[in-house]
């Protein structure tokens, strides 16, 4: 089967609006989490997050059109343009069938909310809607292929990768942009997740609040931003002299069918998603060198993930593991995408980014942690778990390119 590689990356993050900046900050253990000051939060149970500043228009685009977009549209467009330019395909995009599949869970809500804040009432007149964020990107970037928005909660970005793989393998597109973008640090979302008791209430210490796998964890901290990747067939990339950042080997996908918010404590389906990904990549568990964990810092979620990993890898053969959410915050439906970018960091720099704030590892999560400090290691296979609300389990496997 033809290999599919990632040949371009675009990133919007409070840790940097480029892959290089993001990587350097992740490897330095820098956190983007801070007090929210952009809107009043005094009555919010959680008052910390990683909130981005929307990047200015890419020089390749008409700034006036870009400036008139909603922030979610701007960030996704920024990522897409940057990814295409990074792959060296911006100039050629009109001659290619460029697919676009974006993992975005709350596309409409983001736009309804932003529109209401700008004094509009789009929510009452939905037929006036100008189209999805993905369609906006497609139009602005003049892309010429199928365009889909896929939502599977926090697993959305991995689902987007799975669709892109399929389109490329079926020959429906020449290249495919895939990723996720989510701007969940807004008043309603922060309030809803906060009221759900899913967020940390460690408001006085933002930098140490997000503590995946730690005994003292008390929930996640929201982040926002996104990442978009250019995927193409390996031979096509190599014919242009590009090995690619990594090969997209497989995506395993299952559902718990257990609860709309709480993961299945047996972790059976999460484990099956991991096994499926390993099988589809034609690998064995011992081939996996590094796992970027979902690890949202909730009591139940981290234990379930550890349980799933132990079922697949056993007690004594755990690959190195870290949760970069501890630095980025939880990007919700873009989490899988920014964490795929973190895996690419490990390939590109031969260093694994750490889980920060892991001071007292939970005995129920006794995995092979890369704790607090980045670890030099040359890896060949990286795995990224994303397990969303509602039991949407997904595992992405990336392999060192060519």
């Amino acid at each position: 089967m033809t290999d599919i590689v990632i040949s371009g990356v675009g990133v919007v993050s409070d840790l940097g609006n480029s892959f290089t900046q993001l990587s350097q900050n992740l490897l330095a253990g820098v956190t983007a989490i801070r007090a929210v000051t952009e809107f009043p939060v005094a009555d919010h149970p959680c008052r910390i997050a990683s909130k981005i500043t929307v990047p200015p228009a890419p020089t390749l685009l008409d700034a006036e059109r870009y400036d008139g977009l909603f922030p979610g549209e701007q960030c996704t467009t920024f990522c897409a343009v940057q990814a295409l330019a990074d792959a060296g395909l911006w100039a050629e995009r009109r001659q290619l069938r460029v697919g676009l599949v974006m993992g975005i869970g709350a596309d409409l809500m983001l736009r309804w909310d932003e529109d209401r804040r700008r004094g509009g009432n789009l929510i009452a007149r939905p037929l006036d809607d100008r189209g999805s964020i993905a369609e906006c990107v497609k139009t602005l970037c003049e892309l010429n292929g199928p365009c889909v928005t896929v939502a599977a909660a926090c697993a959305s970005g991995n689902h987007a990768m799975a669709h892109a793989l399929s389109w490329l393998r079926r020959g429906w597109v020449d290249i495919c942009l895939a990723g996720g973008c989510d701007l969940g640090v807004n008043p309603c979302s922060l309030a809803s997740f906060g009221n759900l008791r899913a967020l940390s209430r460690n408001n006085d210490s933002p930098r140490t609040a997000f503590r995946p796998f730690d005994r003292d964890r008390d929930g996640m901290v929201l982040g926002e931003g996104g990442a978009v990747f250019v995927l193409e067939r390996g031979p096509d990339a190599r014919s242009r002299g590009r090995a690619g950042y990594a090969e997209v080997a497989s995506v395993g996908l299952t559902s718990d069918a257990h609860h709309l918010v709480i993961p299945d404590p047996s972790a059976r389906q999460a484990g099956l998603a991991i096994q499926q990904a390993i099988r589809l990549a034609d690998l064995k568990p011992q081939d996996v060198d590094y796992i970027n964990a979902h690890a949202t810092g909730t009591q139940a979620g981290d234990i379930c993930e550890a349980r799933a990993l132990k079922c697949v890898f056993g007690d004594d053969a755990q690959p190195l593991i870290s949760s970069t959410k501890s630095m980025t915050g939880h990007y919700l439906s873009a989490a899988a995408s920014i964490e795929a970018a973190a895996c690419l960091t490990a390939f590109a720099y031969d260093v694994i980014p750490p889980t920060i704030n892991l001071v007292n590892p939970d005995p129920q999560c006794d995995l092979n942690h890369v704790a607090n400090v980045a670890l030099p290691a040359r890896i060949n296979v990286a795995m990224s778990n994303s397990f969303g609300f509602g039991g949407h389990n997904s595992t992405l496997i990336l392999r060192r390119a060519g």
Partner: protein
Amino acid sequence: MTNYPPSEPQTLDLGILAYGHAALSIDQCKDVRKSADSRFGLSPLLLKHSDEQALAALVAVFQAIEQSPLPSDHFADWAIVSCARFLGRAAFARVLEKFKTDGAWGVSVHVIPHCTAHGVAGTVSMAIKNHGPSIGIGGGQDSEDNALLAMASIFESGACPGAWMVLSGWSPELQIAECGAPISDSKCHAIALAISPQELGASLGQLQICGISATNAALAADDRTSPERQYVGLFDFLIDSYFGNTWMSSSSAPLQVRLRFAEALRPTFNPRWLRADQAQQDLTGHPRAPLHWPTAARPVNPLQDSATHD
């Protein structure tokens, strides 16, 4: 300029193994919520906060399963691909209003699991205990063709033997007051189709999804504004075929979707192509292989015989 080899366009043939349809008024939605346990084996607490489109989707899926000759566990590892139009609009309007009056503490915790785009797929997955991937697609107008595309993508790895495609929306589109309260007499529709690439011979109908080649991609894009190029959104196509309402036009896509139902279903389910031109060619001009309809269609028309809660 990269020299990309022209890839041969592919046509994917899929069989429709079961389908159901629901049309619920707002009052009927309340009844469905109350009967969650007896009808779906779900906690009424779960459906208390579900969007009406999730309720209609459940009714449609359960109807399809009941009317299918296949055992319900046949679908256990299937995917669920939902495409709900403007899901959670009324509920989110209430959230915005409550936030304005009550601040952060007034914001419901239910809006995220129930009203984000995967809400319908997640609810159906729980109700029928499906362990394949469950996803929401699109969300705005006319994104049903994207649901078909997504479904076809899921089959590529071979990990899923089939998928439920669940399309839902209000007809006519629900009008809401600023506080989110419904102020129009609309019905919430859902259509559930059980689709598999593996069981064409036993299917009730067929779907075709046709790709395009690299050479005509630009042509297809230019052609997008042509009236002949436009086709109706799939959901409206299905609803209108059944209820005879006015068609709505859809944005075009560079993949072509065609749908036909088996001979036995034609009297009620008009097998119109989604594209205006019904040429027996794919978009590249290549001759299309004839569809192979099942020789023994089901004796009963599930749509004709179904109670649609009207």
